[in-house]
């Protein structure tokens, strides 16, 4: 855009930039608190008041066994549900993006519904289903619930990514004598893979962080968010902050490496 013409314009410009920086700091304020308190040496059971700086919590990140178990349960649930949802959701995305057929708009609507339903409704309604059917709520019911909202998320994200692809490439491959299977693995799959990976990463994060739906369907199983919720009243150990920081760092590293890889790839292909 053109340079600001008046001093007033430049003040407004910098004002807006400053405002954006302020919003960014607002977004990060609790993150700093969480990371900072992982270095605190709390008095008593609750890690809410700053006492002394210590590295002890980081020397024993898995000291709180129940907490570690809860985190492992969460990771297990997220892995299984993401795997199922990625496959089912990608198939739906492929069908919606690749083919035009009757009922396309209707199915679109069905897909959006779970994402536009408040979590509390999804959680409570699933719980009534399990109660009515005498299903004991536990690990597998949580997986079922997570897969449900992840399917919609994966399908819509992948579809948005693959929209506008040149599907005639598939025909080109088949015209050149490739079998349908070979066409899929050599042409279609590489085209949609980046979208699928991005969608599955984000839906993994959604599952890991889900609290409300899980609360209704977990039975006696404790996930990381459920454990943290219970800790708020019983004892809030600094290990919660340590593990939250580790999850944060791992996610950032994963995201950054994903970006770097795709950047390196596009550089290679343009060269």
């Amino acid at each position, binding site marked *: 855009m053109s340079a600001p013409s008046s001093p007033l314009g430049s003040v407004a410009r910098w004002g807006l930039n400053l405002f954006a920086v302020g919003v960014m700091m607002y977004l990060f304020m609790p*993150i700093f608190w969480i990371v900072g308190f992982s270095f605190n040496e709390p008095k008593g059971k609750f890690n809410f008041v700053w006492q002394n700086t210590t590295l002890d919590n980081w020397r024993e990140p898995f000291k709180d066994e129940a907490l570690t178990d809860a985190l492992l349960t969460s990771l297990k649930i997220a892995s299984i549900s993401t795997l199922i949802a990625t496959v089912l959701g990608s198939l739906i995305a492929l069908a919606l993006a690749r083919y035009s057929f009757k009922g396309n708009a209707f199915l679109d609507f069905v897909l*959006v519904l779970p994402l*536009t339903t408040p*979590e509390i409704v999804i959680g409570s309604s699933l719980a009534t289903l399990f109660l009515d059917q005498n299903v004991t709520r536990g690990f597998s019911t949580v997986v079922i619930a997570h897969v449900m909202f992840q399917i919609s998320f994966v399908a819509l994200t992948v579809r948005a990514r693959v929209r506008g692809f040149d599907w005639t490439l598939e025909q080109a491959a088949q015209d050149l004598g490739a079998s349908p299977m070979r066409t899929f693995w050599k042409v279609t799959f590489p085209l949609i893979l980046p979208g699928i990976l991005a969608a599955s990463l984000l839906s993994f994060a959604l599952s890991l962080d889900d609290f409300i739906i899980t609360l209704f369907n977990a039975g006696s199983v404790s996930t990381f968010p459920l454990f943290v919720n219970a800790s708020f009243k019983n004892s809030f150990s600094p290990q919660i902050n340590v593990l939250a920081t580790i999850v944060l760092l791992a996610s950032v590293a994963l995201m950054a490496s994903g970006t770097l890889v795709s950047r390196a790839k596009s550089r290679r292909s343009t060269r």
Partner: protein
Amino acid sequence: MTISELTPNPVNSRDESTEPTRRSFDPERLGLGLLLLTGALLVVVGTGMVTGVLATLALALTLGTVVALIGAAILGGPEVRRKIAPYGLLKPGMLWLALFYLAPLVTLLRNSLSTLPSRFAVKADFDWNFGNYSTAFTDFGGQFQRGFGYAAVATVLTIFLGYPLAYVIAFRGGKYRGLLLGLIIIPFFTSYLIRTIAWQSLLADTGPIPSVLNDLGFQPILNALGIMDGDKILNTPAAVIGGLTYNFLPFMALPIYVSLEKINLNLVDAAKDLYSGSVRAFCKVIFPLSLPGLFAGTLLTFIPASGDFVNQQYLGNPNTSVIGQSIQNQFLVQNNLPVASAMSFVLMMIITVFVIIYSRFFGTDDLA
């Protein structure tokens, strides 16, 4: 520069790229019919509306159609395969949604019309008990109002904070746009619950934020505005709204960014060449083109915020209780399944009506 480059894309341009394949595709009513039939059968079986022999029959029919579809794909030629392919691809995921999204809504409705035989009964008996709905409205009307009210205020605040943020990143981020966008997402990767607990400590009476505000002398102003209660922020409606705003800000900023990024800057330059000032160029060109993102952001913020109870639980007080919390409390603590179901169903209906009206006007494409 040609005229066509200058012509703005119509705001509702979602249909132009959806049909890369041939338009002359035969309408396959059969495929959709089978999909809907098996979905409906699964819902019927899942909700337990039919039992015993009928349920087995319905399950057998579902399995039969799936097997028949696979058989047709294997035996039929490539032509048949191409026609039923989309339904084959859709089937597993859609059936999962039928069984674990639609069927639960039916059981929710049935539970909302039931009566608990005794105070500690696990299951309620279905007897068209509409009284649960009047209880939901009379006893929890305030919670409904507060839930939607807080969500509405928070949504407006996220627009106020998120739009400038998205604007600065999209138009002034330069080569750092990707990085800045990543920064918005990073808070997502810490548990929602822990972030809210962090706000609880930040806003606590002995926490850093109230003491800074008091030291700076903002207390009288904030009291007058009704944001602070004396020297307290925690346990006020303002804290709940602040928490909601914080937690859903990225859901607003990201869709707005996506639609801002798509804007062809030539259009803005053209407007300026035609002597429109920056403000006018923004109002006439940039803002209208960013509306799809704004609308998507509004849905993505308002809907989860209206059912949320985590912010209220950690940042509010009993007088600020919202509908999400009442549902949770009646369902999991009081074991009052029918009333909880009724409230849940009403919440769902209000949101659905809202979404239908909304998507009529703006479509749902920008949600993903």
